[in-house]
């Protein structure tokens, strides 16, 4: 069923920023900074399977605990990120963020379904800034 109002696809970052389990922590920090992203997905090398995610606070913990010379697998969160469909209503996705305290979605689409983007507070701010009507 088509979404009423803007869809997730209109606001999402249209690609998935990711790294492998063996990516150095410093490289993860560098890429998050370069991309202006808050979190990235971690996958096994040569696989689309998401093993976890690494966010800014995970990297902050690495700084505190002295793990900055480790790998993404040392600092990542193991739980699977929340997912949302690219064609779903953006308003509904934001409602889920608010009600379930989610700050990062992996956006899935296509057939067979696969990750096509990400949605976080940063993308919402950028979307809100370029829209006149309420989303």
């Amino acid at each position, binding site marked *: 069923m088509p979404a009423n109002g803007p869809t997730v696809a209109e606001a999402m970052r249209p690609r998935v920023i990711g790294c492998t389990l063996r990516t150095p922590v410093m490289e993860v*920090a*560098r890429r998050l900074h370069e991309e202006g992203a808050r979190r990235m997905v971690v996958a096994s090398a040569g696989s689309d399977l998401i093993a976890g995610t690494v966010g800014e606070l995970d990297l902050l913990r690495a*700084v*505190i605990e002295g793990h*900055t010379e480790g790998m993404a697998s040392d600092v990542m969160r193991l739980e699977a990120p929340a997912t949302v469909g690219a064609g779903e209503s953006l308003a509904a996705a934001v409602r889920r963020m608010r009600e379930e305290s989610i700050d990062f979605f992996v956006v899935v689409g296509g057939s067979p379904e696969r990750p096509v983007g990400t949605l976080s507070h940063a993308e919402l*701010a*950028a979307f809100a*800034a370029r*829209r006149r009507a309420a*989303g």
Partner: protein
Amino acid sequence: MTAATGVPAVPAAAQSLGDAARTRPVAEVMRHGVVLCDADVSARDAARTMVDRGVTSLLAVDISSELIGLVDEGSLVRAWETLDDTPCIDIVDPDPLIVDPAESVGEVARRMLAAGVTRVLVAPPPPGEESGRWSEWKERGLPLGMLTVTDILSRLEELEAVVRVRPARAGLERRSVAPWIALASILVVAAVIALVLFAYLNGTHQYTNKPGLG
């Protein structure tokens, strides 16, 4: 909230990147200055200001310039359905974490992690006061700036270079005066001289003993 603790110096020979990052004072890593917005502007206008100014949070002030609180990207979620009609004052964090510029990055990082926040305001503490709640701090005027996780992480790269170059240089200096290099050089020179002498003497001997000449 702690009072001023003095500026911890970066150790002369930091042992690791983590040490170098943790012992820096906030004042060396923070982003100086804050971007203000009127507490009455809409949440959407606040979003535009954040994007235009390249920041992730704004300090909301009221008409009498009193500080009201902090608006960040996450605040927008609270008013998503009414972004054009919701004033910033309704979505601000009225009690943001605020730290002293003299505190170490490591100590502040711990507090950020404990509070689950990715940004803190930086302001000097009121002199002689034990308490440091936002309600007292904001009486002292504008904060000096902000410190975000991004600021800390982006400085890691710079610190990494410092930490790695130091031992590399030290090693280079040691190698330049290492006795085995001098000894190896002497041996190589001696070997070359010996070879030349051997070749010369051997050639002369063969020449002088060559029969049938004359």
